[in-house]
């Protein structure tokens, strides 16, 4: 990683931020179109060709709505809570590696905003800081149902965050580093099995961890089938009951950014990130591979939403603590054992 002047880092971070915001807006369009296709209807078609201006139309509508704050609400916390969710989701994207160091007309430029050597834990930490947006928003609404919905949401998120963390420990054992860039570089090595050269993607060496990560990621972002606290068929909308207009859109879009960042994270950790044929020569091809992998995960999210019924809350928590956590511990145990045996240090 080359040392670059700080203004270059700012420019890269700015570009990453804007790309994320645009993809978040079009993620809403993507979801509506894909859900429509699964439900045998058309989805947005009227605003622009194929409904491509629908996100803009939604934004204009939400900005034009009346800004309601309940009279008994705690004003400052009410205003601050959705911002916490939004900011936390975006901050987690600052450590995702979009490539290596490229040479931009003589200047070395890093294709990532930051490379922390505790990068993977940083994403988990920022995710756990984002839970506060849910809790504080629920409490500040001065609404008993919103509070209970928010606390349930928060309990769900912290339980599944644990599973998320544990499922990654196997990867840390295999790659020896917590830095996301290091994990990505580790996956671009090839394993030779006979005549085949397969990239060392961690989905091949950690399949159980991959499945656990996917389930935990869906629960972490409060998406279907784990979205009981904010489901459309519930009487109240959970922690964002009292939020309307632009503030609600901050929560809503924060959830989408969370989805995108988690998909990027999963692509980096399990599918090699920018690794793919031709990516070591052309960095643009690497970006294309990362984009395709992320789209695959986002499609998987929408697919789950269109297909599965919702979990009841106690089933959800029971699943986390009684099934997924022992499986995650088992995965760590097996990975560590195999690593020790492979190193010849067992006996």
């Amino acid at each position: 990683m080359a040392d670059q002047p700080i203004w270059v880092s700012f420019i890269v971070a700015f570009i990453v931020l804007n790309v994320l915001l645009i993809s978040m807006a079009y993620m809403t369009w993507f979801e509506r179109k894909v859900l429509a296709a699964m439900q045998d209807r058309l989805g947005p078609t009227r605003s622009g060709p194929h409904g491509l201006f629908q996100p803009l139309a939604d934004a204009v509508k939400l900005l034009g709505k009346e800004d309601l704050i309940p009279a008994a609400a705690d004003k400052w916390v009410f205003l601050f809570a959705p911002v916490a969710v939004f900011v936390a989701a975006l901050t987690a994207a600052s450590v995702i590696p979009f490539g290596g160091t490229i040479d931009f007309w003589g200047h070395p430029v890093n294709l990532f905003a930051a490379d922390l050597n505790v990068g993977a834990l940083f994403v988990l930490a920022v995710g756990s800081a984002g839970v506060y947006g849910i809790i504080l928003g629920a409490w500040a609404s001065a609404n008993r149902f919103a509070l209970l919905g928010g606390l349930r949401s928060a309990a769900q998120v912290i339980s599944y965050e644990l599973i998320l963390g544990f499922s990654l420990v196997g990867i840390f054992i295999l790659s020896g580093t917590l830095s996301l860039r290091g994990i990505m570089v580790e996956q671009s090595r090839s394993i030779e099995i006979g005549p085949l050269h397969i990239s060392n993607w961690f989905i091949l060496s950690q399949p159980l961890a991959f499945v656990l990560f996917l389930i935990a990621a869906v629960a972490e972002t409060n998406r279907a089938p784990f979205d009981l606290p904010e489901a459309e068929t519930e009487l109240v909308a959970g922690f964002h009951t009292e939020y309307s207009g632009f503030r609600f859109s901050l929560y809503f879009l924060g959830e989408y950014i969370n989805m995108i960042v988690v998909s990027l994270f999963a692509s980096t950790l399990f599918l090699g990130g920018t690794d793919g044929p031709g990516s070591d020569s052309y960095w643009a091809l690497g970006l294309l591979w990362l984009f395709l992998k992320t789209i695959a995960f986002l499609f998987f999210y929408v697919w789950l939403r269109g297909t599965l019924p919702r979990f009841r809350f106690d089933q959800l928590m029971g699943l986390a603590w009684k099934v997924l956590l022992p499986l995650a511990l088992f995965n760590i145990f097996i990975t560590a054992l195999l690593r020790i045996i492979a190193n010849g240090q067992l006996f």
Partner: protein
Amino acid sequence: MPWELIFFYVIGAASVLCALGMVLAKNPVHSGIFLVLTFLNVAGIFVMLGAEFLAVIQIIVYTGAILILMLFVLMLVDPEDLPSFSSAAPLQRNLSVLLGIVLVLELAAAIITRTSLGAVGPDTPAAIASVGGNTQAIGLRIYSKYLLAFEITSLVLTVGVIGAVVLALPERLGEKVQRRRDTISLAHARGSDGLLPEGPKGETPITVDPQREAALQSAGRTLIMTKDPDAYTRVGVRQGRPDETND
């Protein structure tokens, strides 16, 4: 431009202000929020001191789990039970301020007059980088030299979990339920015909008002407890019909 110094002053001032906010806020949930902000700033301080693993662990464990637990308890406390801010005796308050000032002066004196500690230890930045970083170095240290402490800490955490669960359980009464209740009656407290679970000394979880009970009985309302929803599809049940239960 000494950037490090500037960052230290900004983060340090922010953490002290948030700590003051926590101590002085009237609403306990505001105190909780200020404590969260303080801990985020302290994580920044840890990064400045070269302990980045500790910084993220502080956020994940302390801010992301313990403080959420505290906020849960804070939010579920009824605000009418909150005591007034000032302590019962102004004497106690003034004495504590005096003690605080004295302690701060003592600590400042101790810090200013301290002599630097002895030889520089073995974990120079070069040595840490050669192992792979702060996390790897801490890992090597914990699992070799401090292994016993690590195991004992896991025992402490297990005991803590068991203790918390046992202390927070609702009071368990004896489970002498006479029959299964398959429908819940809105007219009667437990949907039963008077049979309540009893504790070891015969206590019950709810007080049953005998006058209301008698009034209900005399009104001729019948409680139908059945597993089969189609068992009672006849229209116009006569008054005074005794209970018919299908168990």
